[in-house]
Every structure is written in C-alpha cells, then in structure tokens.
C-alpha cells in the first residue's frame, strides 16, 4: 500500500453525564486478505489491520480483532457511557507492525 492509512473518527465534543454516545471510526486501508492472486497467479501476501482498540484516559473501553473477512477501509462503531471529561485514544495495529493512532477529546457537563 502506497498511501499511509488515514484514520477518521467521529466523537461528540460534549456529552451529559451518563449519556450513551456512539463512536464511529474509519481508516483507509486495503485489508489485503491473503486470499487473492495477482496476474501471475502468485498469492498476494496478507496485510490487514488485525486489532483496533479504544481507550479513555488510558483505560481500555473497546477492542475489535479483525480477520481478513473485514472489508477494505474498515469501519467500526461502538458505544461509550460518558462519565467524566477526558480523551479517547484510538489505535489500529497493522500486520507489518505499524500502529496508527488518533485522539479525540470529550467534555462531560
């Protein structure tokens, strides 16, 4: 893959205490399944993002382990119950060892 994966995350900036918020994430990535063959018939090696994690103020909230069956440009949404103000850290872990990261602030009134 020639382009560096670009994560995009949608998190509401503000929430009321105990409000349930939905977090939507997307990252550009080919998610090469390791099942496809190139024109010469050779298998194209697998290269996917295998793990997505979300933590809030350093505490784990949600994790997804993706298999090659996950579509290119993987989308992931999940929920979080707003308790206190702080910052989300989202991480995507690639088969090649790269880690892509994105952060988002949440203010709880």
């Amino acid at each position, binding site marked *: 893959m020639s382009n560096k994966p670009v994560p995009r995350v949608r998190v509401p900036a503000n929430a009321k205490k105990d409000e349930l918020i939905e977090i939507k994430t997307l990252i550009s990535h080919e998610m*090469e399944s390791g099942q496809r063959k190139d024109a010469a018939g050779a298998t194209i090696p697998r290269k996917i993002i295998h793990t997505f994690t979300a933590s809030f103020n350093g505490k784990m909230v949600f994790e*997804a382990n993706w*298999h090659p069956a996950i579509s290119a440009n993987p*989308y*992931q*949404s999940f929920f979080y119950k707003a308790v206190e103000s702080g910052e989300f850290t989202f991480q995507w872990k690639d088969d090649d060892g790269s880690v892509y990261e994105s952060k988002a602030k949440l203010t709880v009134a």
Partner: protein
Amino acid sequence: MTSPMIVSRRDALCLSAAALALAPGLARADAAAVEAELRKLYGDRKAGSGKIKIDVPQIAENGLVVPINIEVDSAMTEADHVKAVHVFADGNPLPGVVSFRFTPACGKAAASTRMRLAQTQNIVAIAEMADGALFSAKSEVKVTIGGCGG
C-alpha cells in the same frame, strides 16, 4: 464499479477470482469449520439462544462490503456485562470475521463493522457474558456478487 467498457486491473482480478471460486476443490469454510472455531474458544460449553441479535441485510448486493451490527441485551455493569462477541461466516475461505471485546465502560454492548462475504452463507455470532454464560445467534445473508476472493 467502473464503466462496462473498461475492465480495470481490479475487476480483472475479481473475475479471475470468481472463476477460481467456481473451480472445484477451492478451500471454503463450512459449518463444521465454524463449529471447530467455537470448540477452540469454548470447548463443549453450550450456548443459549436469545439476548444476542445479529443485524445483517437479508440480501447483500455487494459481498465486498456487507454491514453487520451486533447487539447484546445486557446491563453492562461490573457484575453483569458482555465480555466478548465472536462472529463467524461459514462460507468464506476462513471462518473468522471479527471478535469484539466489550467493557462495562461501553454502557451498551453493540458494535458495527463491515465484512466481506464470498457467497450466500450463514453468519454465526456468540456472546460470552461476565458470568461465563454463552448466547449465540445465526443469520443467513444472500450474496448476489461475491467478495472477489477476499
């Protein structure tokens, strides 16, 4: 997709993959492979029905991008929450699709993603609760255009 006059490299790959898919002997997971994955995770433990809901389209026009939403009925407290949900597909080259790991901080045990399906097949999801109880559900998706061999 691209205009019908031009066959891009990607489409050519898809076509050859589709041709391969029709050839006999190509490895595909089946219901037994999903069973084996479940046994690897949970041994002989039995899963109940209910609580877990799989939301997938009945008919997927494009097997490359099939939305899936999983929701498990749970209070999501320290004592009673969903620890994990595993999703399998019995007609893909590999049975595994995704595993979600929830914490009480989620507040609601629901998550959505998008998957590839090579053909019409069953989606199986199993939820593991904090007390060790298991719940599973199954849903069929009809795929009109396969996932291009991945």
